[in-house]
């Protein structure tokens, strides 16, 4: 009913699909623009002003710096670096530990309750602990991101390894696969779909924790800092612009991860078919 059966049908539907997909958001933005203009409320600036403000704030710099302004270098780059580094550490740590836990039923049973508890702790609750231990700054923020985002990857990897077909393990034993080969040829491919499901959760958690750790009083730079800074100055235009920027950033990072997933899982599926 939804999927067009023939390429011709798809071509015929394309204008309608495009109109629906782009038309409604455009109408929504235009309505917002008109309504905000008519009301003139400080709290709801028009979309045009938000975009313009964001452009002036971050993307109107010199060409040799990829048009980034000083504010962008001060606010965006540190945040981007933290979220990427934190996510990468959480992903690597989660996959390695997950592989280690998932391979042995005994080890998994040993760690299961502790893991369940660690996962149940809302990550922001731990940030005050990291503030005391690491003081304010990048190490504290990285620790918060890694500690909050590692669990979905770790648990999903372990579950994926546990769910591996016993027949494949027997085959691996028969052909005398070495442990390293087992990990690369057997465990990782089998756990890959679940690992990516965990990575998606971790990515959005990393973004949340990046912003959260930068919102804390005492931070000196980053997107979250510019947000609190704008809040104390009641600069709603900047608050809105940061929100739009974060939405775009989240969308971008998520699309990138999905592209990697499609690539990795596509190869994985092709390998399984042959």
């Amino acid at each position: 009913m939804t999927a067009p059966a023939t390429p011709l049908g798809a071509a015929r539907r394309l204008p309608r699909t495009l109109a629906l997909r782009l038309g409604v958001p455009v109408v929504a933005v235009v309505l917002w623009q008109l309504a905000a203009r008519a009301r003139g409320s400080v709290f709801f600036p028009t979309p045009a002003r938000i975009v313009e403000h964001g452009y002036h704030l971050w993307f109107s710099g010199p060409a040799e710096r990829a048009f980034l302004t000083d504010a962008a270098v001060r606010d965006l780059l540190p945040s981007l670096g933290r979220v990427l580094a934190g996510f990468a550490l959480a992903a690597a740590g989660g996959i390695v530990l997950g592989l280690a836990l998932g391979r042995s039923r005994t080890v998994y049973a040993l760690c299961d309750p502790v893991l369940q508890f660690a996962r149940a702790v809302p990550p922001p609750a731990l940030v005050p602990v990291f503030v005391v231990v690491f003081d304010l700054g990048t190490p504290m923020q990285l620790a918060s991101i890694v500690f909050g985002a590692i669990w979905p990857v770790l648990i999903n990897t372990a579950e994926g390894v546990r769910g591996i077909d016993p027949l494949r393990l027997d085959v691996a034993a028969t052909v005398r696969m070495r442990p390293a080969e087992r990990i690369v040829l057997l465990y990782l491919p089998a756990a890959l779909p679940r690992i990516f499901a965990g990575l998606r959760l971790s990515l959005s958690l990393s973004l949340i924790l990046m912003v959260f750790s930068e919102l804390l009083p005492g931070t000196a730079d980053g997107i979250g800092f510019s947000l609190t800074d704008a809040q104390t100055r009641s600069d709603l235009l900047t608050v809105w612009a940061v929100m739009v920027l974060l939405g775009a950033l989240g969308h971008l990072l998520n699309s990138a991860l999905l592209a990697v997933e499609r690539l990795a899982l596509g190869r994985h599926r092709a390998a399984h078919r042959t």
Partner: protein
Amino acid sequence: MSPATAGRKRTGRARNALLGAVGVLVAFAACEALGRSGMVRSTFLPPASEVLVRAVELGGDTTFLNGVGATLEAWATGLALACALAIPLGLLLGSVPAAAQATRVLIEFLRPVPSVALIPLVSLLLGAGSETTVALVTYACVWPVLFNTVYGLGETDPLAKDTLRAFGFGRLAVLLMASLPSAAPFIAAGVRISAATALILAVAGEILAGFGEGLGTFIAQAGMATDGTRDVLAGVVWAGALGLVINLALTAVERRLFPWAPEHRGSRA
């Protein structure tokens, strides 16, 4: 299931529970040793036993319990609001393809906005109070419920729908009699995922607001006090326990209501 395999399963489960208990003890002892050894300053990491004693003590503290109650209230209100918004919307988007296409771009740009980033805006609009926390929790919880509802509707058996249609039932009747029941386990799983997110947001909102009452407020204020790490960790123990209890309760309810759902089939049999 034969009695023999049932028995093996039972001893397996007992063994896992025992191993789990050992694991908890080892982790506890490790934290205790780390706290006592002097390797880490005890203001940074107090021994686990002290934290646990403090956590138990807090269980008898009415002010603290009131705070936990306030957190849970914001949590439940936000989650309920999110369900009230997301389930009907999900049913609409899942059964009317045109509506799904029309809202797709909007949703894809709203969803990745990290909900914590809304705190400054929402607190400027609503003031720092429980309304702000509830609004944040609602925003964050709408997405998992919405997506799971849409996804669940897509998994409905077309035969069931066709059968009802052949009997002359209208669109709404088919939706309510065939699609909704078959999507219900997916919706419930979405609610469970949201419940965890809701707790994260409730605590995060309270920590950043820094006043009022609530578990997050308690943790934030203890974090600012000198030598407050023990209180912070006791609060974290409470937060983790709450998250665990909520998750276990919801999983149990799901298993009760939808024993056929794919997630529970394996664990039940």
